[in-house]
């Protein structure tokens, strides 16, 4: 599967904000080219990273709104 088609399938499968989508694409590319993971693993790792960032952002936003 080419990087572009991987990216497209990810985009259609999970709706995310532009920034997180950008992160997903960057990570898939990084996982394939630098970490030399298989396309399946590259997507899995990218998905997990997106989840981590999403959760961290929520946690920080929650704290900011509480302390505001």
């Amino acid at each position, binding site marked *: 599967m080419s990087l572009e088609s991987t990216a497209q399938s990810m985009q259609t499968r999970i709706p995310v904000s532009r920034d997180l989508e950008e992160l997903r694409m960057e990570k898939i590319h990084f996982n394939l080219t630098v*970490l030399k993971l298989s396309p399946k693993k590259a997507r899995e*790792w990218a998905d*997990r990273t997106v989840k*981590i*960032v999403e959760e961290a952002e929520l946690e920080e936003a929650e704290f900011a709104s509480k302390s505001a």
Partner: protein
Amino acid sequence: MISPIGSIHTSEELIQAGISTVRRVLKQIADDVKADPDNAFTEVNIGTPPKDKKALRVDIGAEDMFARELRKYKQSTFYDVHVFGEERLRDETLDLTLQSHICVLVDALDGTDLLERGLGNWCCAAVFFYPSGKPGERIRAAVVGLPSSEIYFASADESSAWVEERVGKRREVHGRSGVTALKDATICYYGQKMKNYMSLHESGLARKMSTMLAKSKTKRKTKGKTEPKTNFRIYNLAGIPMMLKLVDKLCQASHGIDAVLDIDGQKPHDVVAGAFIAMKAGAVMRNSITRELVTFEQLEQSLLKPASPDHELTYVLSATDELCGNILVNLMS
């Protein structure tokens, strides 16, 4: 909190960005290891020959995460901060003296061997510095995350160190011990590899330990078993996490870490972030060869040439200067 002339980020801003980034990296590391350990601990070649280098996926992934999350923090406000990751530091001649940006030296996963073995003495360490700043004030902030999710930090503008235990919950470090005598001390040194292990084993400190043991045995023999055993402890695990614990004793009654030392030489990314935090909280650092005090300016010098073998640090970091002196006297005797 003022930013140094020419720098657009204050130390407090760098700390906020550093904490947020380190927190994400810690989660990424934990997740990579939990979800896919077989891949996480597989080696890949990075770079192109002849300058390629083998590294583990978990290390490279963590370093990439750090660079990206820092750049993206607060709508890319920190995009101008230059990230130098340990895994990509291959050019021994790299000289940051003339850099006009804030730089950050990162060891996104320091102690991979420990993580691999399910042990906890690893960390994610970052030190922000401004090469064009005034000597002695170039290090702006240091942030270190531990597997426990505690994030230790110190700023150029404050004379103490803090811990963020979870998002928004901060406290000042509990402080260091007042131990001055070697017989009462808890010492840590990096001695996992044979070379490092033997360096201490063959030093005067090992001979001093034999003498202390013999004295303690004789005392207990002559005065009976009521004579207390020596409190001396030595751990062959050291590094940045131990430096942090040196200034964050659990409580007044407990024993803590009293000294961390290295006599073989360590790269700046393995030392500076932890040493800066510990020194801000009052710890004393001396060169283990020259016995001279290590100043913030000397730490900075090592950061300016972060991959140079000539800028490796040999040191004794101690809770008190008296203990530091006692260790140094015995080490080289």
